[in-house]
């Protein structure tokens, strides 16, 4: 028999990765569902996924101009948008995938499928939004007649890094939220404060002189979004947007740690999801 399956306490593990492969199309279908459903019964439809980043960018650009914050060699809107792109992807992906299990609890208690599909497909939805906003960035660059530097070819790697960061945090939040609804509120705070804790309107090199003595500046990069934004600006804008490599390394390590531990925690809690939700 091709589908032999043994269920025992603590042993459902074995078939898990094989199952995940078998259910690979579900990633796509769930993401597709969430994307379709979001713009049903709206007038402008998909255009909404452009409106939000564009408006936020406009507001933040005004803040940058009024505050006379340095944007270096690049035009203000580009400077802000290049950072907003990864930040918005990270924050929506994190909160969407964090709440994904709870929002689909009716499925969770009725059907079997590898639960990992749920938070990951929520991140994929945000990724689609991210690419839509990316098109707008390209348009913006064309308007400013801005040619991205050579390092733009490293961009896919940095995108992979945000993706990993979003999945990692999403897994942690989703698994915690099944048991502790408190997390739902924590997520809201994370999204709100994260904008200030991340250098969306700042240059990371603006960290005060006296901080440049190693540990403090490195500490800032423990927030992985800092390293990611640094990476984005470096790839897309170049010029005086340099990567602070030690910091970037710290961010990368943090992302990997969150991803691996998130996977581990999610997997260890997964078998009790249906009982606890």
């Amino acid at each position, binding site marked *: *028999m091709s*589908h*032999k*399956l*043994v*269920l*025992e*306490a*603590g042993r*459902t593990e074995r078939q898990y990765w094989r199952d995940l492969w*078998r*259910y690979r*199309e*579900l990633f796509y*279908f*769930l993401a597709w*569902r969430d994307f*379709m*459903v979001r713009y*049903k*019964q709206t007038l402008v439809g998909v255009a909404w996924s452009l409106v939000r980043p564009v408006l936020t960018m406009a507001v933040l650009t005004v803040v940058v101009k009024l505050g006379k914050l340095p944007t270096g060699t690049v035009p203000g809107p580009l400077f802000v948008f290049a950072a907003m792109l990864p930040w918005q992807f990270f924050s929506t992906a994190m909160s969407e995938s964090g709440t994904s299990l709870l929002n689909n609890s*009716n*499925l*969770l*208690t*009725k*059907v*079997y*499928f590898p639960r990992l599909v749920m938070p990951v497909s929520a991140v994929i939805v945000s990724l689609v939004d991210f690419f839509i906003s990316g098109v707008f960035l390209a348009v913006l660059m064309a308007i400013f007649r801005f040619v991205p530097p050579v390092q733009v070819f490293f961009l896919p790697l940095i995108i992979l890094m945000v993706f990993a960061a979003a999945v990692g945090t999403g897994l942690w939040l989703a698994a915690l939220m099944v*048991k*502790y*609804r*408190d*997390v739902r509120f924590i997520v809201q705070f994370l999204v709100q404060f994260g904008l200030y804790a991340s250098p969306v309107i700042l240059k990371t090199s603006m960290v005060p002189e006296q901080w440049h003595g190693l540990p403090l500046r490195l500490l800032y990069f423990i927030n992985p979004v800092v390293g990611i934004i640094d990476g984005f600006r470096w790839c897309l804008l170049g010029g005086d947007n340099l990567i602070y490599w030690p910091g970037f390394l710290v961010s990368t390590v943090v992302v990997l740690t969150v991803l691996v531990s998130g996977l581990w925690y999610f997997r260890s809690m997964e*078998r*009790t999801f*249906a*009982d606890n939700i």
Partner: protein
Amino acid sequence: MSENIINVSNLAKCYPLVHQEKWVAGLRHSLENTLRNPASWFRGAPKHEELFWALKDVSFSVKMGEVIGVIGRNGAGKSTLLKILSRITEPTKGRVELNGRVSSLLEVGSGFHGDLSGRENIFLNGAILGMTKAEIEKKFDEIVAFSECEKFLDTPVKRYSSGMGMRLAFSVAAHLEPEILIVDEVLAVGDAAFQKKCLGKMQEVSNTKGRTVLFVSHNMAAVQQLTTRSIVMDKGMVKFFGSTDEAVEIYSSTAGAEAATFFDVDKTPRKLKFSGAVRFVHFRFDRVAPYFEAGEDFSFCAKVRASEDVPQFRVSLTISTEEGTAVGACFGPERPGLRRGEETEVKITLKNPRLAPGRYSCTVAVGRGSHRTTQTDFDVVPDTLTFEVLPEEGEAGTVAAWHRHWGSVAFPDLAY
């Protein structure tokens, strides 16, 4: 064909009973514990919780191509068993071996998204149940034809009637062609014609394709029609596994033991005070279980005791639905009186009350007179006597479906 497709041995599942305050404490409680004793985080929850064993030591095996009924009262462990078999939850102890793909029929709405069209939902639901896009495309026309929803394929599912939604859900699941199909109480929805179609499909699936079906239902007639062997679950254990006819008998008798057929009301205080000239002592149903088939006469025995000389008395009753809505009432004729201290048992029969399938309770009164004359009551016992009306058999062995919104009385068939 004789290979075992399902092997369950010593299966047990326990749930911790969490009390409300502890639950509210949620995160704080856990954080506190973790901070005080960091090692506990790795060892899991403290062990002093109260435990509830939903399944205890369940073992059975099912051969390929068998259709097995699973019956039992609510809370007997049927759903837990199914949840383990369909891998939604993990067993606490024991072992299950499955030699094939398992698919369970979804409740309407759980796999569907109301905003998506029927067409989109077929793909979504199929994917959730583990089908690939290619598989769904191959079966698409068949699924649509079976569900009889062709016209509404591009209508959002939220505009479907519940029957249509159910048809679509059943169609997707039935075409998944799993080796093991789990069907849980779906036939309660849908009209008789579709019920028949579903039963037919399930029979076809098991006979011609050698699939195994686990059929869970409270509907004895459907279980008897569809299955030859059944499992009776009781208090988390397998009480019986064998021929369906025997299983149904055992189920009815255990159900009867739990659902009372004898009601001692001699000492119970009355909510409504009446003279008590004649008082009820007990009621009993003259059968093994408080079940009546649709179309059957409703009858029970009531024992009364007189505390003073009464020249005449009659019994009257009101039947109410489970929700407490009165369905109807009737009075009996006056009977010869009783002397002080005298007791007698009266057999009361209501000829075919035409009650629709469902649970009912009966308020019984003893007194004088009726709605045609003046009337007084000596004693009233409200809602003590409870009973259930079972559905009658429908056309060609299917079960007649009675929708709740049709009311509680099944009028006689129409005449033209």
